[in-house]
């Protein structure tokens, strides 16, 4: 994939779905003429669908105990995340202009203590799903049955064994208020023969594997849980460049 093609794809994909600030210009403000890795572009569509059509979260109620939780486990996919959060007005867009600077709250990995709307600090791979399982259990134990926990991972991140501790436990115990989202850009060094979803399904999860650029397909998949079991959405995008 050439750089030009990538940019064109992103501007098209990042078009706003409602009257809020367009995401693409915000992403450009974060980018500030640097080259982004393909991981930024691999997640942008899922993030837009989540924040615009799925998650019950609001900038004025970031501590509402009944909010949905979105946990970005692959914390390096941060530029699109910041752009989407700024578009949804969780923080002022001018924070984007100094991302990573000495006075910035926006690092190359997100910190929940520094950025409104960010549920976990991440960066080291393999931590989000365990935290998500704990969050789902904590909500259930308190009788909060409406909010749902969404955790976004990458297919290469699934290499980390900690994920498989969480996948099996959540599946075999029927943790119904948890959704995992795997961005599959075929970047796992040794691959996942049969696809990432198979690792979840064998433990009792429901699964949907969809085109990670198709917003309607993503929306259907992200709202496709059956209420009895955890759900995984595998969003397939272009393979990561070698």
């Amino acid at each position, binding site marked *: 994939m050439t750089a030009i093609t990538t940019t064109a794809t992103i501007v098209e994909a990042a078009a706003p779905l409602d009257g809020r600030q367009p995401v693409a210009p915000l992403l450009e403000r974060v980018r500030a003429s640097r080259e982004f890795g393909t991981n930024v572009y691999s997640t942008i569509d899922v993030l837009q669908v989540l924040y615009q059509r799925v998650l019950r979260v609001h900038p004025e109620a970031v501590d509402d105990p009944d909010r949905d939780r979105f946990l970005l486990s692959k914390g390096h996919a941060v530029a699109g995340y910041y752009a989407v959060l700024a578009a949804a007005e969780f923080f002022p867009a001018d924070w984007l202009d100094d991302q990573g600077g000495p006075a910035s709250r926006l690092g190359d990995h997100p910190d929940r203590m520094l950025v409104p709307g960010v549920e976990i*600090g991440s960066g080291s791979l393999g931590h989000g799903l365990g*935290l998500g399982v*704990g969050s789902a259990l*904590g909500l259930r*134990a308190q009788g909060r049955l409406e909010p749902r926990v969404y955790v976004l991972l990458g297919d290469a991140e699934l290499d980390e064994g900690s994920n498989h*501790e969480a996948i099996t436990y959540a599946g075999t115990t029927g943790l119904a208020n948890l959704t995992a989202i795997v961005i599959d850009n075929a970047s796992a060094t040794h691959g996942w023969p049969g696809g990432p979803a198979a690792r979840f399904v064998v433990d009792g999860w429901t699964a949907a594997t969809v085109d990670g650029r198709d917003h309607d397909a993503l929306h259907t998949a992200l709202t496709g849980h059956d209420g009895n079991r955890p759900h995984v959405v595998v969003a397939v995008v272009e393979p990561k460049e070698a």
Partner: protein
Amino acid sequence: MRDTFVDTTTALLADDPRTALVLADISAALFAPAAARHPDRVLNVGIREQLMVGVAGGLALTGLRPIVHTYAPFLVERAYEQLKLDLDHQDASAVLVSVGASYDRPEAGRTHLSPADVSLIDTLHGWTVHVPGHPGEVAPLLRTAVAAETSAYLRLSVLSNDRPLGGDGALQVVRDAGPGAPLVVAVGPTLDASTAALADLPVTVAYTNRPRPFDTAGLRDRAGTDVILVEPYLAGTSSRVVSAALADRPHRLLALGVGREELRRYGSADDHTRWHGLDASGLRRSVLDFVSPVLH
């Protein structure tokens, strides 16, 4: 100590709906009655220690107060990055309760020895560390830890002193040799051997079951020139704290505890206490070597 922990935790789960317990199979049978009463708050994740701590972090993020329990090396060493990131980095907190200590079950070999646990916890910020010296100290320490908002590590052992000592973790003088005398600080189960070793020597013996935060004010009140630490985990674990507390005074420090060398020997816990020089005669030998030039 483990039985007291089980009883107290079972009571806490019944009394406070914020309390949760996360297990990784160890002690699960002992908590079966609690699990039957509180299935949503007694969570055994199986033999999955990374998940155990991650789950604790997630529970804390939703407002619960998790107690996390397994064997010391699996709780602290195997899941160390989860402690650092899933608890501390998230500004989430939990109460960790371990069994096994440095060498409670030496016949199991190196895999079940955890002399470095307190040192590892000490790399984190703001943790309280409790090392009870008697089963009778466990319940109040656990209740205090769970009632607090910060993270705590409660280190249980099969080794103990003959009698419990109460207190809030401040240094308690057990034997007072007067101003200027060498000060022995015995942590947790090392107290009885320390007092037996030094009964006829002009040294002050003080006790604590809370090495973090260390009672530095009490230390400064009591310390003369010579300070001797006796700790049931890695020797020197609290040296930096004592040195910093006394930085403005000339002082000498002897730090006794479990050695770093892997002994590759089985035997009993008492054997290991002796091999590490933490029995009464070993302690007496070390303390005499250290203070003799001063006493004479």
